[in-house]
């Protein structure tokens, strides 16, 4: 085992793949291009062959490694429980150790994400450039190409001004009445820099429910984008920092499906002889998705009956209520398995008309590093998702992953579809 290589990311577990092909029935990437080097079964085989010296680690090998969304479907369907996403990340990480990071990745991962305050300063500086933020000035719709290069040509919404941590203090008291409990919030980078309105709604909603909300401003990126790019060392450093910062809280809530899925698996970043493994496991047990937190504590019992849910084909606009459809984030369903909570919340909101879109749980195509390395596949998957949103006839598409939100917003803009994309927190706070 190579130095610094945690057991769970090791290629040995790829040997447990018996090539049954069940992953091929679930993989969103394989579903688009039917290329077997882009699905867990093929990738596991390539990783084994490369390890055993039977395959060169050339550009085509790296193409296979990068063509994974890390959505977790293959692992969920695998009869042998092979952790294929972790195996892919382990192989990417091996490549990074052998070849080093590309300069743009190095800048992003090591220089910025690890020290988010430095990243914040840089982005804040950029935000004064005309058109980059919604601070003022002409509404430029697309983030300039130079920044978009980091994101595989994705058009991002303008930067939030000010950032979320400049809007709300580190301690938000309950809005009124007795304190019902205490909760700390892990916001994630997208709420911080791009969707501060949604992030703010999540924090304030918890305060309105009576919680004393802790919002440590020194928290950093969850580390998933860094890990996804194969930079394991930085991902570990980031995890340690977050574990320490949140060590004094009992409940940690996040509104980001991807952050949540990753925080809950921090343990897998550390080898079994690493003292951080136990700390990471203890931390992971405290983490809950926003919807999971609400539903577990009975804050939003469904007031509508399950049978009232209508499918999009038969639905007609119900008297003046906005029609809302729901995109199920991969990291909610396949990594955290808390997808029921989301629908309970949506069914609990009386004055919206909730309709299911076809393939609510099909991936939007973002997938972090995947989307950067494979913009064509990203867009093919996005087009399917936007088409399903269109056919649902919804006014609003809700989701519980800020990453999916950015991707879906990009798709809605590309298709000029007059549908608003919102986080669940914005909906529950009545922002529709």
């Amino acid at each position, binding site marked *: 085992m190579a130095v610094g290589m945690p057991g769970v990311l090791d290629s040995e577990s790829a040997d447990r793949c018996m*090539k049954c*092909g069940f992953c091929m029935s679930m993989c969103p990437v394989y579903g688009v291009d*039917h290329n*077997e080097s882009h699905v867990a079964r*093929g990738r596991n*085989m*390539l990783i084994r062959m490369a390890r055993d010296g039977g395959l060169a680690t050339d*550009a085509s090998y790296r193409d296979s490694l990068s063509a994974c969304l890390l959505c977790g479907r293959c692992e969920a369907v695998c009869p042998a429980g092979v952790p294929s996403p972790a195996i892919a990340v382990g192989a990417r990480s091996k490549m990074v150790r052998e070849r080093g990071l590309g300069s743009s990745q190095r800048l992003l991962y090591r220089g910025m994400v690890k020290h988010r305050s430095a990243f914040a300063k840089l982005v804040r500086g950029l935000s004064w450039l005309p058109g980059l933020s919604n601070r003022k000035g002409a509404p430029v719709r697309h983030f300039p190409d130079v920044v978009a290069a980091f994101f595989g040509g994705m058009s991002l919404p303008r930067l939030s001004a000010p950032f979320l941590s400049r809007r709300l203090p580190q301690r938000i008291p309950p809005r009124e009445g007795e304190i019902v409990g205490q909760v700390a919030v892990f916001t994630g980078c997208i709420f911080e820099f791009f969707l501060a309105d949604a992030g703010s709604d999540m924090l304030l909603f918890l305060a309105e429910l009576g919680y004393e909300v802790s919002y440590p401003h020194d928290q950093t990126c969850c580390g998933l984008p860094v890990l996804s790019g194969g930079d394991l060392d930085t991902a570990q450093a980031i995890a340690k920092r977050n574990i320490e910062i949140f060590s004094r809280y009992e409940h940690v809530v996040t509104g980001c499906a991807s952050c949540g899925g990753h925080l809950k698996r921090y343990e897998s970043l550390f080898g079994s002889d690493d003292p951080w493994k136990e700390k990471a496991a203890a931390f992971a047990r405290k983490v809950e998705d926003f919807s999971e937190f609400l539903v577990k504590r009975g804050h939003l019992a469904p007031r509508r009956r399950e049978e009232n849910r209508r499918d999009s084909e038969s639905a007609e606009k119900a008297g003046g209520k906005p029609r809302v459809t729901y995109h199920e984030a991969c990291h909610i369903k396949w990594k955290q398995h808390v997808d029921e909570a989301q629908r309970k919340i949506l069914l609990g909101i009386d004055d919206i008309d909730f309709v299911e879109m076809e393939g609510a749980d099909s991936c939007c195509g973002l997938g972090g590093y995947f989307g950067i390395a494979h913009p064509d596949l990203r867009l093919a998957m996005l087009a399917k998702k936007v088409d399903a949103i269109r056919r649902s006839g919804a006014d609003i598409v809700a989701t519980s992953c800020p990453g999916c939100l950015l991707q879906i917003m990009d798709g809605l803009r590309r298709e000029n579809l007059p549908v608003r994309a919102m986080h669940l927190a914005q909906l529950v706070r009545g922002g529709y």
Partner: protein
Amino acid sequence: MAFGKSILGDLKAIVGEANVLTSAADLAAYSYDGSSSWQSIPGAVVFPSKVEHIAATLELLNRHGTPVTVRGAGTCLSGGPISPPGGVVLCMTRMNRIVELDREDFTVKVEPGVVLHDLNRELAKHRLFFPPDPQSFLAATIGGCVAEGAGGPYAVKYGVFKHYLLGMTVVLASGAILELGGNTMKNVTGYDLPQLICGSEGTLAVIAQVTLRLLPLPEARCTVLAIFNDVRQAGKAVHRIRASGVVPAKIELMDNWMLRRIEELSPLGLPLDAAAILLFEMDGSAASVAPETQEVIRLCQEAGAIQARASEDAKDAERLWGARRAAFSAVFGSAPTVFAEDVTVPVSKIPDLIDRIAEIRKRYDVSIVLVGHAGDGNLHPSVLTDKSNAEHCGRAEKAVHEIFVAALALGGAISGEHGIGLEKRKFLKHAMQPQAIDLLRQIKSVFDPKGILNPGKIWE
């Protein structure tokens, strides 16, 4: 057997640049199938998107004498879709349209790359059902299933792929496009060519479209779990149920090794020392399923079952079948190399075969796990070994050979549903007369005179 750049250029001209893969990683991803002993790197992977692509590709490769191996999802367990080194893999997964669903006549026309599970998901919307169920159904393609003559647990009541095949479009090695069979339940127009193609493992022609017969989706289903202290009692139960006139849709047998894995992976509270479990599925009208379920339970008890119970609801039934699937997967994770065999005997001979396998297990000192379709005589003894340990693997190979000999001696066959492919070709001469094997060769040479279609499979 590497081929020139000009062929590659011509292939790209036929199917388009994006439908020809040649990079090292892409080729490696098409170098294997679901079996554990075979691998070889092809020279190119070509994805046709219509029948004309297949015809032009075959015409080109036939002219050059380049081997072509057709592949669906590559879930085969006998090495069928593995190309000789440097050959062309013709991968059908991008031809995956359901062309026409006829709800009046209960037939469907599909392209070969349609995944079996996707087909049934679509059919269920119309309350229709395509029964043959190789357990790779989540990924396996219809073309691959037809070419391999696949089947599954439903064979007891519903038969296998060949029983549903009405017609097909095929392309010969020369590039000629032929329509075979038709759309009707009965058809005796000349030799039954679709049946000849079915199970020919890609050696005679390339399947470009198939027409399949469908059934209405059964209204009700119920599962029965029965536990026995003696495999012979389980055999007796199966026989009595078959004689009673009740026809379960599935009758699955698992041995003590499987039972223990089930208790580890998804505990059902089974007694760990029991010798065998039978799992039945009853389906049909709600009015018939309930009494038939009771009858199956009664007959199991009469045969000596220590426990027999019906599933409480659909969820409970899914739990039982899920446990079986998980335990079967555990077989493959339990050793570096697994010879998953596929012998078939007359149904009444299953207890005899199991006794013989117990002797073989002892004689060669190897682990052999038993799972099987007790209702149709098809057993999957899995011999656990490790390719890298020559001594152990040698014993395992001998054990496999003895299992074949035992099955043949009991009036059985060396493969029920996996095919011969590479895995069993050296045993073919023990299972078929020399003249019959010659007939196979002659038929092949009529369809494919230059021998470009999946060469090296079935016989040595």
